[in-house]
């Protein structure tokens, strides 16, 4: 079975992917990750297998892009840096929100797991499927991430 027209697929999934990426990598980098996600999807689109769950497929790609994006650029020092600009002009973000700073300081897998679990309200099974890990690992990532966030926010 062939997948639906890419245009319809993108229309159906763009908001969910963008929403996830804004929380996962921040508004300044969400556009880049969005492009990378849908370009990867487009390259693989002719060979995609599970055409009934393209929403999960693209979110898996987005998770990978979000993890790669932050790999090697998170460190303790991000805590004291000013965050990058929150995008051009009209965006309703408070870039100095301590929650942003705290989330940005988490190791990427913990951050992505926390976002999937508590921003997108996914089950641990779903978090594990999107991140290609076991449920135990997903649970541990969420737990560790939340523990750190609570320390940072207290």
């Amino acid at each position: 079975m062939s997948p639906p027209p890419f245009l319809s697929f993108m229309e159906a999934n763009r908001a969910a992917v963008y929403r996830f990426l804004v929380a996962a990598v921040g508004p300044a980098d969400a556009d880049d990750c969005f492009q990378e996600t849908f370009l990867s999807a487009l390259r693989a689109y002719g060979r995609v297998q599970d055409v009934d769950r393209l929403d999960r497929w693209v979110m898996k790609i987005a998770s990978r892009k979000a993890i790669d994006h932050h790999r090697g650029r998170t460190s303790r020092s991000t805590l004291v840096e000013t965050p990058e600009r929150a995008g051009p002009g009209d965006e309703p973000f408070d870039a100095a929100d301590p929650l942003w700073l705290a989330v940005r300081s988490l190791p990427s897998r913990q951050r992505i797991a926390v976002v999937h679990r508590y921003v997108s309200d996914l089950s641990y099974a779903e978090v594990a499927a999107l991140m290609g890990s076991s449920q135990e690992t997903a649970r541990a990532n969420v737990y560790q991430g939340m523990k750190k966030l609570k320390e940072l926010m207290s």
Partner: protein
Amino acid sequence: MKTTELKRLVPDRIWVDRSSAVAADALAEEADRAGLIDVGLGVVGSPIGDLTVAVSRRGLARVLFEDEDLDVALDLLAREVGPRILISTRLTQDVRRELDEYFDGSRRRFSLRLDRRLIHGIALQVLSATARVPFGAVTTYGELAGRIGKPKAARAVGNALGSNPIPIVIPCHRVLRAGGELGGYAGGLDRKAELLGLEGFLPRK
């Protein structure tokens, strides 16, 4: 800290919708530049309403009138031509230019490559014969049947013309009934009359 506070990381739905729409447009442009599109879509304004054109690397595959169901057409293109369908200025530019020229009266003959993957069976012969009917001329269902060696198949010819995926460029509007009546047209008889008027065969409204 409560876990629900994390929802603060995402702005409201309207902002997400608008930002992701802009990002999706940028993606289509990038995909166009990178040559990753199987079927490019474009829109051409015309006196018979906006036309949507679908063009693959082989050529023009589909022309849609504005009241046709775009989703149905795109599903068929995805199956028969390829699923990587996006808006594309690059793939559609020759088609858009030639159609503009046709409608402003400066073009009488199209020199576009066609992708015939949506045309099957007897329609292949019928539509090739139709493509040879020149601007300003007309033929009949019966004559066309004779021309493809099936003189008794006027009805089948009519059906094949009705299924023409590339109207205007394959000029099925130039096929009339033997008595001179307009016959049928997938885009509606008003459009058929308008096109024949544009070509000087019928007086313009």
